[in-house]
């Protein structure tokens, strides 16, 4: 809005149109004096071009790496809500009774006192809720400016768990996954992120996001789409 531009007050005032939301002149990271500068900066980069993964993941000079990783993971968990909302409409407890990606593993939901075989949609919601609690925990992350090394170590397990949401969506709800991925590039960014900061081992990054789907994952893909078709029938019935 004219107002915003002439005064360069970066605000989404009530009445702001969707297209104008967060549409304000970029602010240099060095000029951000807020305690939430890292989040601001990451979101600004994503809004600018969500496909420019390398740029988004490139930490500013002298940025504390723990905080950088933490804020990125917050952003991932936040954006994963989009895929969870989509899954709520498609991934039913009757069809996806377990959290699986390939047939190799059944993932147990860690949100409960004793890990439980939650249906995939519950696993997804619980994992995101649990991540929200952990990442906002006053005990482990009391500050968003400096983070203890012991708390940074917790980020890896959060990454591992939320990654299963990608893998489940990829292997069981491929259309949904592709649609979401095209809108956000989130799985690409996430894969790049955990690889760059060594938060997950390569072997468990099972979504072939950077490979040609037709070649490497062809058989698997066929099988998944079959399963997907079955589910469609179920949901229709």
């Amino acid at each position, binding site marked *: 809005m004219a107002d915003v531009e002439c005064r360069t007050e970066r*605000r989404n005032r009530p*009445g*702001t*149109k969707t297209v104008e939301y967060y549409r304000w002149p970029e602010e240099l990271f060095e000029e951000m004096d807020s305690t939430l500068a890292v989040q601001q900066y990451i979101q600004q980069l994503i809004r600018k071009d969500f496909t420019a993964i390398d740029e988004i993941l490139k930490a500013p000079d002298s940025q504390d790496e723990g905080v950088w990783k933490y804020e990125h993971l917050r952003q991932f968990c936040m954006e994963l809500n989009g895929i969870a909302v989509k899954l709520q409409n498609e991934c039913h407890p009757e069809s996806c009774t377990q959290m699986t990606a390939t047939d190799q593993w059944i993932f147990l939901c860690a949100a409960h006192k004793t890990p439980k075989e939650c249906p995939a949609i519950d696993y997804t919601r619980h994992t995101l809720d649990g991540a929200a609690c952990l990442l*906002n925990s*006053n005990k482990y992350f009391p500050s968003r400016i400096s983070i203890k090394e012991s708390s940074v170590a917790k980020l890896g397990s959060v990454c591992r768990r939320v990654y299963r949401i990608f893998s489940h969506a990829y292997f069981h709800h491929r259309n949904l996954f592709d649609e979401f991925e095209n809108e956000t590039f989130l799985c690409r960014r996430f894969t790049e992120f955990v690889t760059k900061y060594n938060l997950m081992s390569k072997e468990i990054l099972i979504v072939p996001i950077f490979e040609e789907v037709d070649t490497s994952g062809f058989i698997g893909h066929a099988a998944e789409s079959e399963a997907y078709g079955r589910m469609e029938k179920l949901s229709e019935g």
Partner: protein
Amino acid sequence: MKIPESGTMEDGPNSAPHNGQLGPSGVGTSSSSVKVNNSDENNPRLQYSIPGILHFIQHEWARFEMERSQWEVERAELQARIAFLQGERKGQENLKNDLVRRIKMLEYALKQERAKYHKLKYGTELQQGDVKPPIFEDGIGGEPVDGESIFITNSNVNWRQGRQLLRQYLQEIGYTDTIIDVRSNRVRSLLGLNPAGTSEKEDQTGGSALNGGATGGTVGGTAGGSAVASSSPGDLSGNSKRLSETQGRRAPAKKVPPASLAEAMIMDTEAAVMANFDFLAQEGVGVEVDDEDDMSDEMEDNTDDDADDAASASNAATSKRNKIKAKNLRDDVDAETEEVLNEFSFLGSDTDDASHELRVQTDTTDWGFSGTSSGGVSRRSVIPAPVTGPAPAGIGAAGETAHLAGLAGLSSSDDEGVDGHLGLGELAQLTVNNEAEVSYDISVNKESFRKTWNAKYTLRSHFDGVRALAFHPVEPVLVTASEDCTLKLWNLQKTIPAKKSASLDVEPVYTFRGHTGPVLCLAMSSSGEQCFSGGLDGSLQCWNIPGSNIDPYDSYDPSVLSNSLLGHTDAVWGLSLHSQKLHLLSSSADGSVRLWNPQSKSPLLSVFTSESDGIPTSVDFVRDNLNQMVTSYNSAACILFDLETGQPVTRLETDKGVEDSVFGRQINRVISHPTLPLTITAHEDRHIRFYDNNTGKLAHAMVAHLDAVTCLAVDPNGLYLLSGSHDCSIRLWNLENKTCVQEITSHRKKFDESIFDVAFHPSKPFIASAGADALAKVFV
């Protein structure tokens, strides 16, 4: 080697005398060993006769005893030193506490000032405010009386006897000497336990060390009257009392002058001090009149918290003493002792550790102890230098009684010294109590004030700014809506214990997922069963709120998202619910305001647009006329519509005064007063404005914040207004006189935004704020 040789007994008689001679003379190890060697060379056989061995053993034993006594002396010295240092520490603590108390007093004064200010400014609340100060004044009125009366009665009774005694003593001895003597006594109190050299004396020394405090009590008691005897606690004090008495008895028998002299001097000083104290007491009274509350508080504390005093004294040694002191206190000699103690602490601070020895020596000469210890002179060389004072006296039998007398004197003087420390301890405790008292007052203050809100719950779980929040109508439950595309349900009764901070952390009991873009606004039904949220993507969702006690990790229930209201084509920024029927108003960046009946098959009831006025920013039902609604626009227009006809009824004169503003014309929020025909608007230009709904005229305008005002809420009774701003603060206003009651800095900035929403709980004393820092806070 020795054993076989010692078997030869026949030669004993010869050697025995020899050794016997050696024995007495050879006190030191070196001399005796030398002798032994010599005898070995000269007459190896004679050397080891039984008597000789016995002698030797006796010698050795005597030597060990000597050494042991030396160690005892040293130990006593160090103990005295410890006592001294403890006393000093107490003194420091006392000083600190005094300062703290002073701070508290000032704080309190400030609070009263504020209360007065409130009284003057705010009519209604004032009544609460009014209630408060009176309570205080009552307390003030009562306390001084108590303090004074206790003070006077006790002091009168206890003093008179003491004073009589003291006067007698005073007549005997000059006053000026006393101060010096007291000083020396004080020093001696540091080393006063030295004399306990021999094993016989050990008990005594132990006793006197222990007695330090107890006898201190007795001295204090005699000064203050007979009270102490009855008050001295438990067997310890009993023993000590007896001991001191026996000492006192013995002392007069053998060495009347020194003992009585010592006592006399002490009494003198006390008397002098008391004379001073009289003076001070008067002053104190005067002070009381001046600073009624403070002084009286203190006095109150003294009397009230005696028991506490005793209990709170924690150090093993000092606690005993303190108890005694506390008892004394109950007899209300405290005031005097305080003064005395002050004096003594003064003196104590003068005496330096380094100068111990010197002073001790001078003391002894002063007191003539060196003379009395003649019996032990021969042994003096044995005893290490620092103990040169009265210590030697203890060993010789002749010097023993003399020494006892000295000891009695010393112990009493010692007591005084200890007293000084004790007094400090007392003082420290007194101030501690004061602290407690003051803090209590403050809490009382808060309770009766009930106007200061404090952050109690921090709601952290959102990943991005919290745009809106709404309370449940009855339960301590609220829902928050965030830019992270979720809504969360919070039960304030389900808290997790937070470390250190006073605020409690709450974890959400449910996360509403349905929006794919930031959630901008929120409204909760008056039943508390449903809530509605509007998103940046133009969606409007209706939710069935799950029970507030559900398991956060229960399985997904799709029925929570009941339905979506379709119609808006751009971000939905404002929502308002009819208070009686389930009708919903929504304002959107698409330029329209829509009225919905969410339960109906065709929920959209009507659409209101006013293209010339721009984009609606906020909407509310007119609460005193539910057939109308009020809408604010980003053009600074604000219009009342008739819901039936869809026509504008009144156009509030919001354009005036806003036009010239450089801050922008935007109205960020409009709300309707719950009972009056009054509309309140929050402006980007930092103002809050009040309009009469009937005339549309401006009723009041005020610069309310340092930055854009973003949100408003009126309490259910219509007496208070809550506003939030991008200046990071929320402010509570009294609606009657439009003055700010409280300001709370609540949230941090993200970009140039800080606080998005505020709310009152409809039926409970909660207020809440939601911020761009992804937190929501609840205040009580």
